[in-house]
């Protein structure tokens, strides 16, 4: 994946479910700082909630980094876990697919809610997801 544009503007460890709420709050604040519109914020923070929960449930925890991009002004997050990885990404992105409790709309849904979505996963090495949104 492309290198980070700068130092992250925020970082949230995802170790327990309370951290998913912390991730939502941190991203929500970052979007407020960018002057994001209500709808855009709701969409992006919801997507963040999905992938953070995914990292916790399937990846055994991880870390969420928040970046602010200039030119064009955007928010980007990167969510990294060292879990078992996803064998078939296309299948995981399909609505209705789930290996745990998320009802299988999580990843595919998250992708629909953001302006850019990248996923990289290696079996046994973990999963990294990057998402971007205009404010």
């Amino acid at each position, binding site marked *: 994946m492309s290198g980070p544009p700068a130092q992250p503007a925020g970082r949230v460890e995802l170790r327990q479910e309370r951290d998913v709420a912390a991730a*939502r709050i941190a991203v*929500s604040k970052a979007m407020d700082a960018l002057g994001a519109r*209500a709808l855009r914020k*709701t969409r992006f923070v*919801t997507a963040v*909630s999905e992938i953070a929960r995914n990292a916790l449930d399937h990846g055994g925890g991880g870390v969420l980094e928040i970046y602010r991009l200039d030119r064009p002004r955007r928010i980007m997050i990167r969510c990294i876990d060292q879990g078992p990885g996803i064998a078939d990404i296309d299948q995981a992105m399909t609505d209705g697919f789930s290996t745990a409790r998320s009802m299988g*709309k*999580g990843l595919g849904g998250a992708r629909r*809610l953001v302006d850019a979505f990248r996923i990289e996963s290696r079996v046994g090495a973990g999963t990294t997801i990057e998402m971007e949104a205009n404010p």
Partner: protein
Amino acid sequence: MSEAASIYTVDKVLLVAIRDNITDTDIINLQEDLSERIVNEAARGVVIDIAALEIVDTFVGRILAQLSSISRLLAAETYIVGMRPAVAMTLVELGMDLPGSKTALSLSHALRALKAKGLA
């Protein structure tokens, strides 16, 4: 009961106010608390107010749908009220339109509907 949600009884209707940034455990606890209260108080109506929720993701959406289903099984008609426009649009995009749940604009709209059916 945790701080994240409270259950009040008004006119034999159980009002559930969910606060923002509720955790997964909170909402699962809520499920248990609510079903017990419905049975204990023989409530025929439940109103779940989610006006405080800025975000409803698939997990919370699924719990809301389950709350409605459980209440209905326990003979209490359940309304989800106060959903924000941005939340409604996002849920539809996620493919979660809560087909089995009744909705109303606000608490008073839901209470009016329950009264009309003699459930409040």
